[in-house]
């Protein structure tokens, strides 16, 4: 699935922890849903989007910087009409593309995205209960059914070999009892599941991705149940269910929801690995340390000089001054990359996931099959 270039970059990063193997590119802030836990579509609304020419220049710079993986995210990436060209810009240069969607991509868009080289997809799915999912997605009707329809289409167009499919599941009080079902459902479809605990902030501390809605926070009386569910999905993973998350990451979810200090950064003086191992790009092509923070100054990554900027010590100090004051996040990929690069057990687990233990895929799967499978899993859990 990864090009040789990406494999070499990843291998170097595991040893030296100093090349940006993973970049989150927020190619648009536009979205056709307003999920209650997501704030990034508003936080990134103030900048223009990159042109395709600028994106090609970003891809050129990524080659020089040895970037291995770029996540194309948003907003809804499929809202961009030129998404296939964007995918091609990176894949044709040997940079692995992970696509993300809320599930509203149509068949033509999916076919073109795969044809352009996309072999790695993540779809948001928080529950097997359609009404609950629609509510989480901002009270849009049929959004759950659309997500399953999109899953089916990806299993139709993506190759069985050398491809990766995952479900992004936000772990919050409203759906925590559904998470085991999502993992079981994903496994039945040969899709991994990855959990992200809900991130909440307030008006005096705005952060790019974090919702202001205090009612979505875990309450102390829910901590015990949340811990119990995390342990149950950990057990499921150990039994062979396709849960992507490492032990260290799951442990940190438990800390995060209780607002306790995180431990995944402990091997780097409690600072994350931005910009050494990962960073984010705003829709206008500017560098940002992550989805929560921006720099005061503007550094477009499509600029020819960005490679020199990236190596510059003064610039690195500017980034460090931002990230060192962060209380820490649990946005899936950032902590998991640090954990994979700095913790041996997780490193081996990740190698196994991507290189040796790919699930046998019973693809293509029909939409009807997925709906029935979801229904049967829900019924099973009702009786437990």
């Amino acid at each position, binding site marked *: 699935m990864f090009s040789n270039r990406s494999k070499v970059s990843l291998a170097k990063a595991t040893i030296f922890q100093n090349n940006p193997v993973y970049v989150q590119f927020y*190619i*648009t*802030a*536009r979205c056709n849903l*307003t999920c*209650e836990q997501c*704030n990034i*579509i*508003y*936080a990134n*609304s*103030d*900048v*223009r*989007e*990159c*042109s*395709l020419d*600028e994106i090609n220049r970003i891809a050129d710079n990524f080659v020089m910087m040895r970037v291995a993986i770029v996540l194309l995210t948003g907003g809804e990436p499929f809202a*961009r*009409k*030129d998404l296939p060209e964007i995918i091609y810009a990176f894949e044709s240069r040997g940079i692995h593309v992970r696509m993300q969607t809320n599930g509203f991509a149509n068949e033509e868009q999916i076919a073109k995205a795969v044809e352009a080289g996309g072999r790695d997809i993540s779809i948001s799915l928080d529950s097997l209960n359609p009404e609950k999912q629609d509510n989480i997605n*901002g*009270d*849009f009707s049929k959004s759950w059914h659309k997500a399953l329809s999109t899953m089916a289409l990806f299993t139709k167009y993506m190759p069985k070999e050398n491809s990766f499919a995952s479900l992004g599941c936000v772990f919050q009080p409203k759906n925590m009892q559904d998470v085991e079902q999502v993992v079981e459902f994903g496994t039945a479809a040969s899709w991994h599941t990855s959990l992200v605990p809900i991130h909440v902030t*307030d*008006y*005096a*501390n*705005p952060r790019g991705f974090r919702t202001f809605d205090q009612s979505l926070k875990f309450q102390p009386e829910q901590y015990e149940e949340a811990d119990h569910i995390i342990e149950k999905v950990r057990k499921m993973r150990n039994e062979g269910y396709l849960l992507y998350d490492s032990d260290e990451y799951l442990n940190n979810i438990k800390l995060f929801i209780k607002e306790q200090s995180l431990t995944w950064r402990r091997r780097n003086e409690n600072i994350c690995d931005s910009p050494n191992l990962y960073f984010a790009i705003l*829709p*206008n092509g*500017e560098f940002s340390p992550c989805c929560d923070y921006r720099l005061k100054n*503007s550094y*477009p990554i499509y600029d020819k000089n960005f490679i020199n900027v990236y190596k510059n010590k003064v610039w690195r100090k500017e980034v460090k001054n931002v990230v060192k004051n962060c209380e820490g996040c649990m946005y899936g990929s950032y902590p998991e990359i640090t954990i994979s690069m700095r913790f041996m057990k997780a490193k081996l687990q990740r190698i196994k996931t991507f290189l040796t233990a790919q699930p046998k895929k019973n693809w293509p799967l029909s939409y009807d099959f997925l709906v029935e499978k979801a229904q049967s899993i829900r019924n099973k859990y009702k009786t437990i």
Partner: protein
Amino acid sequence: MPKKIKFESFKNQFLINANETNIIADKNKWKKFLLNLNFLYEGKNFVISSKDNKDLILKFNINDAKFYIRGDQDNKILNSSEDDIKIYNKDFFNSIVKILATEARFV
């Protein structure tokens, strides 16, 4: 009911700029003030009020901000090397923060 995207964007951009502003001397008091703000969507207006000060009500036209400028269409804005939209919005929201800070007697 789905959230109003322009309203939420306006609220978010206002709060980001309000938290980054350097025109306020007493930062702690300002942060407490921000925590007690209310935001409403009335017609085309973004309305800011305060739980601390019932006389403080400010209205701004939501359409004066420029949001979600596309990159996948022919667009003259994309030809500029700088992001003029970002610069415009920064100035616009800073001016709102200044008006609020003045009305609430922080400056």
